[in-house]
């Protein structure tokens, strides 16, 4: 199948705060910065780690691990109870920043949003890459210096999310018709949103 590529200008920006809850806790509690942190709704051995920090992820802790298993892997892991008020406040702060650039902001979850720049005057003063860097700077200045995000820019939501996942943490990537084939070449099937191991098996069968 040889479908034509979309040659339109990329005008969708996907912004994703990875390890969001853990990053917010490290912002609020400076003594936790650089340490492995796991946020859980239930501080008990059977509780589930809902957000490990990047330091914890590097030590093998993943989302969904039981607290007891996470501590087995990473004995110095700091387990924190979740603080939804804090996370909602940060979510409101970053959505407020995004709305300065376009009225078409769609929050996808507490730590992800899509900005549609179609027809916005913002594009007259700067490119989307420059706006992406400006958003990153504003998040650090207006929310906290630990706040980092992954930004993906593309012609549709799926590619924008894929672009946001290319260089974690704190990446900014653009997928256009120029590089879409090269990007797909370097990705595994399970790197694509919505495809996990079982779906991969079905597609490969």
């Amino acid at each position: 199948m040889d479908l034509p590529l979309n040659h339109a200008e990329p005008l969708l920006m996907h912004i994703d705060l990875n390890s969001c809850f853990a990053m917010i806790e490290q912002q609020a509690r400076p003594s936790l910065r650089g340490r492995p942190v796991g946020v859980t709704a239930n501080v008990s051995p059977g509780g589930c780690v809902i957000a490990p920090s990047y330091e914890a992820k590097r030590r093998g802790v993943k989302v969904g691990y039981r607290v007891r298993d996470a501590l087995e892997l990473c004995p110095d892991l700091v387990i924190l109870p979740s603080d939804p008020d804090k996370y909602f406040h940060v979510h409101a702060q970053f959505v407020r920043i995004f709305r300065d650039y376009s009225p078409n902001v769609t929050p996808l979850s507490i730590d992800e949003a899509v900005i549609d720049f179609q027809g916005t005057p913002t594009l007259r003063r700067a490119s989307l890459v420059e706006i992406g860097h400006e958003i990153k700077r504003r998040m650090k200045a207006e929310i906290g210096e630990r706040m980092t995000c992954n930004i993906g820019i593309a012609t549709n939501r799926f590619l924008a999310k894929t672009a946001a996942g290319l260089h974690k943490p704190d990446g900014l990537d653009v997928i256009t018709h120029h590089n879409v084939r090269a990007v797909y070449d370097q990705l595994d099937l399970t790197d694509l949103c919505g495809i996990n191991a079982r779906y991969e098996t079905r597609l490969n069968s």
Partner: protein
Amino acid sequence: MIQAVGEKVSVIASCSQPSGRVVPHRLRWCGRTITLTKLGLHHPVREGRRLYHVFSVSDGTTDYRLKLETETLHWVLEEISDGLAA
């Protein structure tokens, strides 16, 4: 390790205009005066009709969670933590 405290404390804070940014600078607790060097995060919390402002601050080694009750203007030290695992 996180230690719950829940005690009313004296706080010296500043409010700068036009941003309206409030920053706690000193805290008096257990007969000690603690100089706060860093405001990590400030966020509001509503509990029923009451509005609180929570300030996560640090003196460089220990983190403090201070809560300002807007109805009474009392500051409460909710917890302290040293960033180490329990």
